[in-house]
């Protein structure tokens, strides 16, 4: 009995650094030796994939890249996958960010996608096949401006006037957008729905961090969002759908999902053990009384 008591007490008073070490190992081991565990795409992810897939070539897709480097692991793979998919389908892509620290990530994603698509013979041209508007300050005021007259934003990230770019020839306001995906680490997804899609009546989907994913499901249920990419898993599901269709390989979201699963298993296992230890300790104390 005393041995049990010691064991339980040791577990319940485990040094937090041992837990950190276990979590680090649970992440590192699958990253070094991948397990390739299956990840099934959910309806809300398929909805975004299918929308981009079914739009006729040449459709205009607006991607709002509203996140900063602190959300990069979850949202950057979504940006890359969505850009790849759109360029493969020959869609026109307009990218904007309402976050101050967002532009660097868009530039990086565009460079990566162009480099990865080159061997497939897909070479999107700036100003013709895509345009990056850069960071536009003002939150909902920017969206209202885009809804009224997109040229009011004046220049793209490189300083070119929007009316001089061929991609904006037939895109003068948000009403001319065929589909938008908002990749958000904050509440700009609400802003885009309220002042964008609802006001100017166009289709919108959302890719968000895991932290805010549960908050946007009501929009999906109310059909105010046609699909959701939730966190790393959502990104991984999209990457796998894209790879299944176009054999472009999976990105880093899919590579991270094994580690994600291992950490979840570790946490669940730890919670069960802690509960068992708690009940064992209580029964020992009661027996002593």
């Amino acid at each position: 009995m005393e041995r049990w008591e010691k064991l339980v007490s040791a577990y319940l008073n485990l040094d937090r650094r041992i837990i950190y070490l276990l979590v680090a190992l649970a992440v590192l081991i699958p990253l070094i030796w991948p397990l390739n565990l299956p990840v099934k795409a959910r309806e809300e992810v398929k909805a975004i994939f299918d929308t981009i897939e079914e739009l006729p070539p040449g459709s205009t897709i607006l991607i709002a890249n509203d996140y900063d480097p602190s959300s990069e692991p979850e949202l950057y793979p979504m940006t890359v996958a969505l850009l790849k998919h759109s360029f493969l389908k020959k869609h026109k892509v307009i990218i904007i960010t309402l976050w101050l620290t967002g532009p660097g990530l868009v530039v990086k994603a565009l460079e990566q996608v162009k480099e990865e698509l080159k061997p497939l013979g897909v070479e999107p041209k700036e100003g013709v096949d895509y345009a990056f508007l850069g960071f536009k300050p003002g939150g909902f005021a920017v969206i209202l401006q885009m809804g009224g007259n997109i040229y009011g934003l004046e220049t793209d990230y490189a300083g070119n006037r929007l009316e001089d770019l061929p991609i904006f020839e037939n895109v003068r306001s948000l009403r001319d957008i065929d589909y938008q995906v908002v990749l958000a680490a904050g509440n700009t997804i609400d802003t885009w729905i309220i002042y964008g899609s609802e006001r100017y009546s166009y289709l919108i989907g959302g890719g968000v961090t895991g932290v805010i994913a549960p908050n946007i499901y009501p929009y999906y249920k109310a059909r105010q969002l046609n699909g959701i990419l939730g966190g790393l898993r959502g990104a991984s599901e999209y990457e796998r759908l894209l790879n299944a269709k176009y054999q472009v390989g999976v990105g880093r979201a899919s590579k991270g999902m094994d580690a994600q699963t291992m950490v979840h298993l570790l946490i669940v296992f730890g919670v069960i053990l802690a509960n068992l230890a708690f009940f064992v300790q209580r029964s020992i104390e009661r027996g002593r009384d």
Partner: protein
Amino acid sequence: MNLTAVEVLGIWLAVGFTLAIFSFLYRDNPIYRVAEQVYVGVSAGYGLVVTIFDFLLPLFWEPLKNAFLTAIGSPEATSPGSFVVIIPFILGVFIVLRVFRNLTWLSRYSYAVLVGTAAGIVIPQVTDSILIPQVGNTINPLYPWSLNPEYANQGTFWQFIYSPGMDALVTLVGVFSVLMFFFFSVEHRGVVGGIARVGVYVLMITFGASFGYTVMARVSLLIGRMTYLLNPEKGGMVGAAVWQKPTIVLLVLFIVAMILFALSEKKRRPPAEAPAG
């Protein structure tokens, strides 16, 4: 892969700062504190630079300059520009003047414009775009109860579980019980108490789902950094020169530094007093 010296330096710094922040997991230390303060400083500096070059110059200075050049008939004007930008600029300056106690009152005009404009735009738009559609989606008919045809290949049970009627029923029970939990005009006893208790369970399930997603998000961030540390640049860790293996080199250095820090702290600590008696 050919990298410039600046890129190599960037990689080493990124790896070094990541390891420095992680070192806090062991214990607080000077390396962590330096990294933390550099991070805050760089973020603020970056924000300031972007604000000046992406905000102030293109949205205030350029339109004002062009308006002035147009007014004097200068051919250097690249657009008609606008003098109207002076108004928001002055309102912005009023807010900054809050630092002087005797001029604080000026900021009230700025806030009045901000709040008034925002309320005028936000209230009708949010009512129209969020409140009404969300309330409308909460009120769904329970009858007639049809099975969900999308789950036809998984059997009647799953067609029943995923049916619109079940969705409406769960929403009804959830919303009503949670509202009852927050309805304090009636004492939570008897039937009302029972319904409020169901509301508590609904809230707990909601918080649990949110917490689960939050854990996933935080683990994703860790995975992101670990992926970077394992491969700071393409092909960096396998068969590369020492300068291409910042993770290993810096990890060893950090461990040595932590040991030295612990030893120096031990030396500085006053010796424990001998037990009395």
